[in-house]
């Protein structure tokens, strides 16, 4: 049994709650090595996503993801807007044909999302960006699926890997995004985008585990 459109809506709502809860934390992380808006940006975006989903009844998981994508693109701005927007857009495309998402579809969606982020942002692992959370997450989710894991297991693996990946950005010197302007001074801080990616995946995993 996979996730239906309404499961995905529920998951996105959980993501929005987590973003709201961690708004200040994300902004504070961005204050240290960026411009102190990451939490604010994502919260503005997911607040708009909630409004867009409110009353709407998208028929497929893909339709839900597409609404999330276009809303984030038009409301977030900054680097995170086009990056997360593209991620959700690619995920929507990757799942276009399914009414329900099984573990393999979730892995495909995550893989497409990462490819979208990399296509737009050109970051490589180790550049101290959200890619450092997303890339290990995709690898772990794929491994979990290969091991026969269900959606919950796949997302748990992704969330766990993203969390370690995000933590691992702390010592890095940023080579992409605003933090790169700081050069060596960017080391010693958790990357806000990596942290938000890990929070997003954890929220999805938590919903799947219910």
């Amino acid at each position, binding site marked *: 049994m996979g996730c239906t459109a309404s499961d995905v809506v529920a998951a996105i709502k959980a993501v929005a709650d987590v973003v709201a809860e961690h708004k200040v934390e994300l902004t504070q992380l961005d*204050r240290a090595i960026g*411009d102190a*808006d990451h939490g604010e940006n994502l919260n*503005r975006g997911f607040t708009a996503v909630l409004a867009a989903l409110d009353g709407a009844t998208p028929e497929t998981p893909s339709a839900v993801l597409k609404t999330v994508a276009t809303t984030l*693109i*038009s409301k977030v*701005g900054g680097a995170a807007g086009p990056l997360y927007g593209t991620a959700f857009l690619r995920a929507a495309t990757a799942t276009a044909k399914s009414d329900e998402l099984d573990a393999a579809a979730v892995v495909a969606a995550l893989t497409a999302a990462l490819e979208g982020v990399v296509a737009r942002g050109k970051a490589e692992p180790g550049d101290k960006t959200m890619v450092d959370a997303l890339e290990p997450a995709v690898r772990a989710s794929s491994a979990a699926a290969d091991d026969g894991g269900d959606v919950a297991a796949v997302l748990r693996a992704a969330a766990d890997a993203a969390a370690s990946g995000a933590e691992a950005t702390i010592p890095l010197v940023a*080579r*992409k995004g605003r933090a*790169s302007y700081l050069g060596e001074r960017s080391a010693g801080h958790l990357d806000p985008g990596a942290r938000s990616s890990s929070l997003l995946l954890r929220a999805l995993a938590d919903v799947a585990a219910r």
Partner: protein
Amino acid sequence: MKKIINDPSTVVAESLRGFALAHADLVTVQEDPAVVYRADAPVPGKVALISGGGSGHEPMHGGYVGRGMLSAACPGAVFTSPTPDQMQDAITKTDGGAGVLLIVKNYTGDVLNFETAAELAAAEDVEVRSVVVDDDVAVKDSLYTAGRRGVGGTVLLEKIVGAAAERGDDLAACEALANRVIANVRSMGLALTACTVPHVGEPSFDLAEDEIEVGIGIHGEPGRQKMKIAPADELVDRLLDPILEDLPFTAGDRVLLFTNSMGGTPPIELYLAHGIAERKLADAGITVERRFVGPYITSLEMQGMSFTLLKLDDEMVGLWDAPVHTPALRWGV
């Protein structure tokens, strides 16, 4: 945080409302998506110039919309790049049939959002080109980083290319001129105090009573280096030396010297620094042919300053002097 605002979440919208009332003769302000238009847009047959970026840098960019400068400006949230739907709206409503030039400052967010907008516009058959301003020498340029930031050079480019578009230059010529400005302009700034983004509520970085940040950007990001406050003579050196070395600017060059306040530094200090810089350039055999002194690209209430140096040629001088009529810049009209 003490600010003359009602609510952090409505600052940009409320400020735009006041701006619209103050300058209704020059600009039309659309609330959603937020775009500041030239009152007479689209101008048929003229290349449209569009810029945009986070709010908090006023008068950039909305203050530069009008005759001889921008066709439209897209204001984002404070220090956050605007979104593609704003830019798309601006493209559609300013295109006069001669195409659109997007003036993008080199920040990941601005670049990605403008890129998305350009893709969307291309699908609708509007000819769109982009130039990316990256004049901040505080940031080391490299293929493996986000590259230099766009700062003060942006304002000079908007004026000069705006004049070219106004006289009827075509899109390719405007783009080439913009890239010539970018190739010849360099900037660097410092901060005496941090600024406070309304929704954050606390200063964007910490500075001790006797410390300054050298090599700051315009988004309240910390600079490359903290140092103790020093006499103005030394501060001017700290900013000008890297600029001069970088291009490099050398004896015999003709330049425009742009001495910019980050917002909270008053004219008495700014002119003092400007005077030191002029004499330093004269000593180096560089001719200051035009000057531009004031708070023209700011970071909210931040105290600090930047220098921007543009190597001039005759065409640029003529375009700089050409008439301009916008809320923030006006001459010859």
